[in-house]
């Protein structure tokens, strides 16, 4: 219980930090970017849009900085992120909700898949130490983990879309199909997602394989693994319940820590593929100087990462009784 309370407290704090950064960054930039932006837009866009910017920046001309900060916090708490300039006059929150399912499906699925596969391969590699798999994997994946995501995405487009024509070049679906839960649409969406998914998978799986392999190697040296062998347990039982289950614990912490890295890569992959998800929209908002949308998306990404870490924490608590006892 104390564990849960402590973690939740930490997440609220992190969320608060992200919100505060959102509020402070435009003010701290040289020349107070927020005010400069406001005066630039005055008279050019309608009052509604100005109000949207006021919410995004927390600028209320009649308020002190502290007062503005609390008004801003209040707006965020009620889900008022202002109005998008790019998709005027649509509310930012509505836009975000449209992009979210695409990213969850693409990045969420591939990240989980990469983690599960990578953990599995890493464990096998450590178990068969010095075997073929173990000899080939580390050098290969050390190098692929250094690949820029967006470059691999470009390469994939060039080879599989332009040269071979196996997959569509960009987008999340064919514009001629109607969006909805029809088989044709789902099939089309899957076809569009294969290249970006493969790109994310290839670049992110290496990290999981290597950390799991190294964890498993240390765990295999533990007495309880030797003890399991002394007990005459079957090898697969030793590998999973004794070595695997213990080696995955630090990997789950690692999952939390490298998630930010994966998300960064995913943003660029969505950008390169023009994939209609949160990352693509985020970069669009930057491009169009749609600050209300940009800030909302940044918070959104932070929340998503926090939720994923929370899930990893939950898995740790399930797998490790010591965490449950707060030891």
């Amino acid at each position: 219980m104390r564990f849960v309370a402590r973690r939740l407290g930490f997440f609220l704090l992190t969320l608060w930090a992200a919100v505060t950064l959102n509020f402070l960054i435009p003010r701290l930039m040289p020349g107070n970017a927020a005010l400069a932006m406001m005066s630039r837009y005055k008279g050019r866009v309608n009052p509604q849009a100005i109000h949207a910017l006021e919410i995004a920046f927390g600028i209320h001309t009649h308020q002190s900085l502290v007062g503005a900060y609390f008004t801003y916090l209040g707006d965020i708490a009620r889900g008022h992120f202002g109005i998008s300039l790019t998709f005027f006059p649509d509310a930012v929150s509505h836009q975000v909700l449209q992009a979210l399912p695409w990213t969850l499906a693409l990045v969420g699925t591939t990240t989980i898949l990469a983690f599960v596969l990578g953990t599995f391969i890493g464990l096998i590699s450590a178990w068969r130490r010095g075997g073929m798999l173990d000899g080939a994997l580390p050098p290969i994946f050390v190098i692929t983990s250094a690949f820029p995501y967006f470059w691999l995405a470009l390469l994939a487009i060039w080879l599989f879309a332009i040269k071979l024509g196996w997959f569509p070049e960009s987008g999340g679906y064919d514009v001629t199909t109607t969006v909805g839960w029809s088989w044709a649409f789902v099939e089309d969406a899957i076809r569009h997602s294969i290249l970006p998914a493969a790109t994310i998978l290839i670049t992110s799986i290496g990290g999981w394989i290597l950390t799991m392999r190294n964890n498993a190697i240390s765990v295999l040296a533990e007495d309880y693994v030797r003890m399991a062998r002394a007990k005459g347990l079957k090898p697969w039982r030793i590998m999973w319940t004794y070595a695997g289950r213990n080696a995955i614990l630090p990997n789950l912490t690692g999952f939390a820590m490298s998630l930010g890295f994966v998300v960064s890569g995913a943003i660029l992959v969505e950008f390169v593929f023009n994939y209609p998800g949160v990352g693509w929209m985020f970069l669009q908002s930057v491009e169009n100087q749609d600050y209300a949308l940009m800030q909302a998306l940044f918070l959104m990404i932070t929340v998503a990462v926090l939720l994923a870490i929370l899930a990893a924490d939950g898995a740790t608590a399930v797998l490790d009784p010591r965490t449950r006892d707060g030891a």
Partner: protein
Amino acid sequence: MTFQPVPATTEPTTTVPSSATGPPIPESRRGFGTDLWRAVARNRKAVVGVLLLLFFLVLSVFPGEIAPYSPTAEVFQPGLGPSWQHWFGTTAYGQDVLSQLIWGTRQSVVIAFAVGGLATALAVIVGVSAAYLGGISDGFLSLITDVILVIPIFPLIIVIAAYERNAGLFTLVIVLGALGWSYGARQLRAQTLSLRRRDFLEAARVRGERKSYVILHEILPTMTSLIVASFLGAALYAVLFAAGLQFIGLGDPNSQSWGTMLYWAENNEALGANMVLWAITPGVCVALLGAAFALLNYAFDEISNPALRLRKLDITGTRERPKDATITAPTTSDRILEVRGLSVAYASDEGPVVAVDNVDFDLHRGEFLGIVGESGCGKSTLMYAIARLLGPPFSGEITDGEVIFRGRDMVKLGDRQLRHIRWREFSVVMQSAMNALNPVLTIEAQMRDACKAHSKMSDKEIEKRSIEVLKLVSIDPIHLLSYPHQLSGGMRQRAMIAMALLFTPDLVIMDEPTSALDVVAQRSLMMQIKELQERLGFAVIFVTHDMSLVSHFSDRLLVMYAAQVAEFGNTRQLFDNPRHPYTRALLDAFPSIHGPRVRLTGIPGSPPDLARPPQGCRFAARCPHATPRSIAVEPPLFDVEGDLVRCFLYEESAAEENVRAGATEGVA
């Protein structure tokens, strides 16, 4: 050799699990500093990483001399394909791609080193001070570290860049550095915390050194590898993030960099317009520079963590020994275990280390045999070899000899056959139950594992049997549902013994089962083991460093020194009349409850390096009775009134035909 009085049999009280699983490596050989370069040169990944890095460093320093053209000023025909004049073709603006690549190197290299340096400096400052200051400062700094670690940095940088468009090199370095230190700080903090309670820091504190002095002179040097890892990690992240930012147009579009090249290539749809190399090669450069850092980082991990390095055991170089006359008589019903000429070697960087060298002994039904010796003498390895617990994925291999257990040579048994007799016929109790019990399973689950592996017992029967054995060692059956960490040290140890008795085996091999306990708990556990042994009739091999502990319990004692049997005989006889100078020294190092008060003496010197064992008697360097002969020639085991002693002092008293050639005279 330095003659420090070393209390012979006091092992470090903190149990280092690796000490039992790996070859003993003298402290001096673990040194980092100068050995570092040799280790780097030996590691293939490190060599490739260094070469790649050097390549880019040269490009970044001399782009003007190396690049064939100016990156921007000289304009050729746009969109040229690869040719001898333009290896990688030209851009849509008619500039030479290769020259742009070469000029672009500088920025990536500068960013990598500047951000790596800045982030590492911040990581060291925050991480080390958090751990060293402790208390509220630690809480505060750790919290900041964790928050920064969790906030997705790249989106945050994009948000910052959105307000500060066309960020120059300086801004980029500051922002990346200011946000990229948290991972390193976290690791450095953990490392510092683990160092805090070490003796050398306590000593510095007692000397009254200032905190800043302690941090700079005592803590930082021990963390070289972590600091290097932190630098390499930050450099890798900086190269990738900077390229990403420039690629999406958030850098200075006029700068010479790989990311900017990709930005322009993407804007001109270079891939579709057949200027593929323009769009691909900058990415290759980013990937290669990134790979250099990643490879170095990984290699460093391997170098600083020896467990990650795989060493192949090559025993072709070890000396050949003539086979001893093995006892060919069929195993009598009384003798359940015979160990003949057993040798075990570990692979190490210096070649094979023979940790058990040609050991012979036998064990009778229901007998209690003590195996004693200093840490690193090979006693635990001997125990693992007998129980066939060596070999992949564990280090160490049996290189020679037989272990005949109830008529079967265990060395020759396959995994499946071994599995069949494990735990039913012989079981193992390890040194520290804290390490030997699976931390994530309940006691019941761990007992059920063993039962399911060897019997068709139903869950009900398993539970009944588990309760029975727990009661045998006086543990409340309620603890079946406990996890190891919820039990006290003594209880854990007893639970492990209970587990070993599930099938009432004929032999229980115990590796220092009491060394983690205090003296009172030790005593009561020993009594309990002895009582159970007499009641259930199993034989015990009891490995310990504490000779006095087994004196009242064991029937016979085997004294090991530097991988060999030094003396083997009846316990009473050995205590009353120790023959080998080493046994005598061991006994002198222990207080006796009875008898006059005498000054305890340690044994001067330290055991020999098993990677390079001495030519003669292994104890000669520390022996008060050493002779030129014992320094030159290894003594065999002499049979003196039924007591086997490896010492030339007893050559005379041993009848010639009684010489049991436990070792050979000839030295290869």
